[in-house]
């Protein structure tokens, strides 16, 4: 038994994850207005309250578990995945669902089978599909601007300043636009010059994606995550997109578009890498990441939803025990796989 330890703790791990999310959050705020900050605060407060209440109900020591910071990470990731202009109760219910059901009813920290943030997101997407599409329009395209007080009033009261219409504030996301336009039969080459698109992904959103990438690199450098899941995830997504794009560029978007839009980078570096619900062996992590990347491409291209990070992650969460069991690494001094299933 070691009498010494490197000073890592669960809370330091979680703090680093939050730190890695900062740049993306800042850019989000810059391009899409203050609504995202409101949802992060809402989600965090709800998460901490729910966590404390659940710890109390389960008669667990509150302090060490609250300080571990895992509830905050869940809240923050959830807020970043949800449309920020949705009414306040949407994010609150999503957070409650994530913490109470997905986390604590499954046994709490370390024991949950499904990624809590993605459970919260998916439940909301199924239950309140209309609200889940209230994505803010990027500032440079907006016909109207909502101040912080206006945002608060809209989120909590649903009222907009006189003369302002919701349509002026929200817009379908690039993935949504691509999807509907393709369904209308327009070739991709005509769709991507539309104003919502930027250089490679969505206008503004592609910068956020870049910030997620930067955060992910920081986490890698800090050894909070390993390269396996993000690399397998993004490589599979890009490869599939590349193949289909090469086959028919009119019907299938380019690989860089797939990487830069939607939840791809957030998912690859922050969500699929959730340690509790992800695969643990090196080989398992590769399989896990690749399968998520592939599923996302399938859902985006042929499925019923514009993006598929949440569903892909949840489906793969279910497979983790199986993946882990079959990918145990060769133990030192063992002849290759001699005694493995």
């Amino acid at each position, binding site marked *: 038994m070691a009498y010494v330890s490197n000073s890592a703790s669960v809370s330091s791990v979680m703090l680093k994850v939050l730190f890695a999310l900062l740049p993306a959050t800042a850019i989000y705020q810059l391009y899409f207005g203050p609504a995202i900050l409101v949802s992060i605060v809402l989600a965090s407060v709800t998460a901490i309250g729910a966590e404390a209440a659940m710890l109390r109900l*389960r008669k*667990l020591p509150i302090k060490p578990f609250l300080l571990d910071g895992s509830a905050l990470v869940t809240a923050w990731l959830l807020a970043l995945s949800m449309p920020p202009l949705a009414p306040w109760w949407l994010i609150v219910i999503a957070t409650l669902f994530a913490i109470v059901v997905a986390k604590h009813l499954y046994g709490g920290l370390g*024991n949950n089978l499904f990624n809590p943030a993605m459970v919260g997101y998916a439940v909301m997407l199924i239950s309140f599909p209309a609200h889940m599409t209230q994505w803010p329009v990027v500032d440079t395209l907006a016909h109207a601007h909502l101040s912080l007080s206006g945002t608060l009033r809209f989120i909590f009261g649903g009222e907009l300043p006189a003369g302002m219409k919701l349509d002026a504030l929200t817009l379908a996301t690039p993935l949504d636009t691509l999807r509907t336009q393709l369904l209308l039969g327009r070739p991709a080459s005509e769709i991507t010059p539309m104003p919502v698109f930027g250089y490679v992904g969505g206008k503004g959103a592609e910068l956020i994606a870049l910030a997620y990438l930067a955060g992910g690199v920081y986490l890698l450098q800090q050894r909070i995550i390993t390269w396996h899941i993000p690399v397998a995830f993004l490589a599979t997504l890009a490869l599939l997109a590349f193949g289909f794009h090469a086959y028919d560029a009119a019907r299938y978007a380019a690989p860089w578009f797939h990487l830069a839009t939607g939840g791809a980078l957030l998912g690859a570096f922050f969500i699929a890498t959730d340690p509790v619900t992800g695969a643990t062996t090196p080989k398992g992590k590769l399989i896990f990441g690749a399968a998520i990347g592939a599923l996302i491409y399938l859902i985006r291209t042929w499925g019923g939803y514009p993006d598929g990070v949440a569903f892909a992650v949840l489906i793969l969460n279910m497979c983790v025990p199986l993946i882990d069991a079959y990918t145990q690494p060769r133990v030192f001094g063992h002849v290759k796989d001699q005694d493995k299933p």
Partner: protein
Amino acid sequence: MLTALLAMAGLTLFLGLVLGFAAIKFKVEESPLVQKIDAILPQTQCGQCGFPGCKPYATAIAAGEADINQCPPGGEEGIQRLSELLGVEPKPLNAEHGVTKPKSVAVIDENICIGCTLCIQACPVDAILGAAKHMHTVIEAECTGCELCIPPCPVDCISMKPLQEDITTWKWKYPMYAIKHF
């Protein structure tokens, strides 16, 4: 519609046959069950379960004639393992059959022993040595601690000595200072 129904019925029938066949096939493997149960029983051979030894008790359990909670030396852990093997709910030890005691061995006070050989006849594992009218002694390594030799001794010179833990048999304890529960 009709074809669908027929197909379903056919499938049910087929599955039923497979299951029935499997049931018959597994029935053949019943005799090893006694051995599997016997492998879990501690082999103290003390008879506290109400049977003249572990094997007869195992046979009775396999035949459904005895409950799984009658062996005090096996304790809760033995019951747990039996319940797992047999796929039944574990239950607390039946107190009628005695309580689980720490593992012990019998010691004969060699100064008092009169060499009557009664203990030899009682010992289920022939762990007592001695000739008639000669001092008797217990082979400690072979004694199961069944206590069967104690009542027959006419001069009450046999006592049970709990087995002491030493450096070679010592066990690391379950770590206790982790936060409970998880």
